[in-house]
């Protein structure tokens, strides 16, 4: 069940085939929801759940879906899961759900979800497909959390809504970096993460 091969499905997306830094998928949401750590974390969790269960369900159905209409079936499954996630968020973390606003609904168009279904779930057994979904969700989530942490810390001086940079810093002339809260800086941060990643992992360089 947790053979070396299956564990690879889980750990590969964290490093060598990370959805954001290597496959450059899901960039839009990575820029849009990472101004603060909390929404970034919730978003990461939601995408992980959707990817994992969409992979699982479609892998179970894979033999019964005629390939001509498979995209429609995939969309139905993903849309149903996204609606579930949206309702759960609204019920339990309403504030965050409001901050994420349209981006929860837009998980349905997240390239990672459809990409993993097409590339993996339709050709593999349910359990590996489920692990692959979790792995890719976590790989995506990891980058989101890093971005959210850096942007909130430098942009607002807080982490998870708590002030971490003491007032005395501000009294001595420290100032929050407003650019960090704007999406362009998020793109530059993603670029820097990719830079660091590739300088550690030389065989990813073209």
């Amino acid at each position, binding site marked *: 069940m947790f053979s070396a091969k299956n564990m690879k499905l889980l750990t590969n997306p964290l490093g060598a085939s990370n959805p954001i830094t290597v496959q450059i998928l899901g960039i839009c949401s990575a820029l849009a929801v990472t101004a603060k750590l909390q929404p970034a974390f919730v978003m990461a969790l939601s995408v992980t759940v959707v990817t994992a269960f969409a992979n699982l369900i479609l892998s179970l159905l894979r033999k019964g879906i005629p390939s001509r209409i498979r995209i429609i079936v995939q969309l139905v499954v993903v849309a149903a899961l996204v609606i579930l996630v949206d309702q759960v968020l609204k019920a339990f973390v309403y504030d965050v759900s409001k901050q994420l606003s349209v981006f929860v609904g837009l998980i349905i168009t997240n390239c990672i979800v459809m990409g993993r279904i097409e590339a993996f779930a339709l050709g593999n057994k349910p359990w590996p497909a489920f692990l692959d979904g979790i792995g890719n969700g976590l790989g995506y989530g990891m980058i989101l959390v890093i971005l959210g942490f850096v942007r909130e810390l430098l942009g607002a001086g807080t982490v998870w809504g708590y002030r971490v940079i003491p007032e005395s810093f501000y009294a001595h002339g420290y100032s929050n970096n*407003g*650019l960090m809260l704007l999406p362009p800086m998020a793109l530059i941060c993603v*670029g820097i993460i990719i830079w660091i990643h590739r300088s550690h992992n030389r065989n990813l360089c073209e």
Partner: protein
Amino acid sequence: MLRKYIDKIKPQFEEGGRFSKLHSTFDAFETFLYVPNTVTKSGSHIRDVIELKRTMSVVVIALLPALLFGMYNVGLQHFRAMGMADMSVMECFGFGFWKVLPIIVVSYVVGLGIEFAFAQMRGHEVNEGFLVSGMLIPMIMPVDAPLWMVAVSTAFAVIIGKEVFGGTGMNVFNPALLARAFMFFAYTPYISGEKIWIAGMNAGQTVDGYSGATPLTEIANSIAEKAPSLNISSSVCDWIVGTIPGCIGETSFIAIMIGAAILLFTGIASWRIMLSVFAGGYLMGLLFNAIGLNAYMDMPAYYHLLLGGFAFGAVFMATDPVTGSQTGTGKFIYGFLIGAFAVLIRVVNPGYPEGMMLSILFFNAMAPIIDHYVVEANIRRRNRRLKKATK
């Protein structure tokens, strides 16, 4: 004597020497001080003795009039705001000198430090592109800019604007303007508004009620208040001489024109770009005169060329040979659009009283496209001529 010393320590930096790792650092300093005497050994090359380092030095010399005047103006504005109008020129200059010097030092230390570090890490020669950028950055900062912000902006501009693209000569955007843009968006309160253009004003050392707004801010304010005419407290004469609040190096039209003369005389900056930036700004101003919806649009078109960073940007920033257009026709188009867009941003978008920075950065990104179409058009024209000739 210096030459002898360099020759004496040189073997230590060559291969096998004690400091062979620091070879590129040594090389950079040696060639900075003396024209290298290495001669091409094979084939025939025609080479000018004016290479990159000498070119950069001329640009720095061209910047000096604006810088020196900027230092004087910093002092002048400061003492005026304090209510001490009878200070001598030297006192004003002295005050400004000690205010501006730290910014220059920070900019050079941070920028060159990063350049040298990257050169060592990547094992290539140190490029001297930062000589000019390091001088430009302090000149487009407000005098009260906190030094650590200058340092962070410079570091951002050199790393993200230049090193990731491959160093000097490969950058897409003008590094000095990138530093200012970073500062502008990251630490907005420290680079816009009415309080930061005069030294000591934020700290409350000035007379109560003294306005430190730049002419462009005053104009933007009058438009925001829907005033029937523009309330500008300074005259055209002040703008030409440069005794107005503003970034350190941008205020004096005369000093900038002296720099422009040096650049054009030595042939370093492109006259095509310089001329067309002014033409673009002026024609755009005339166009707004023709529309004339509010007092700003009715403002005489030549005001735009004298105000804010327009002249400074046109002479020293837009003409950057790396980030600008390369083709002759392209340079006209590129310059013209920079001037036109700078005025457009100023007049239409009240959020940005100064449009020059954004306009130049935007067309830095567009320059390759402009060049592409100029080259394509040239190919088509020559194809047609070929067809006619062979018919």
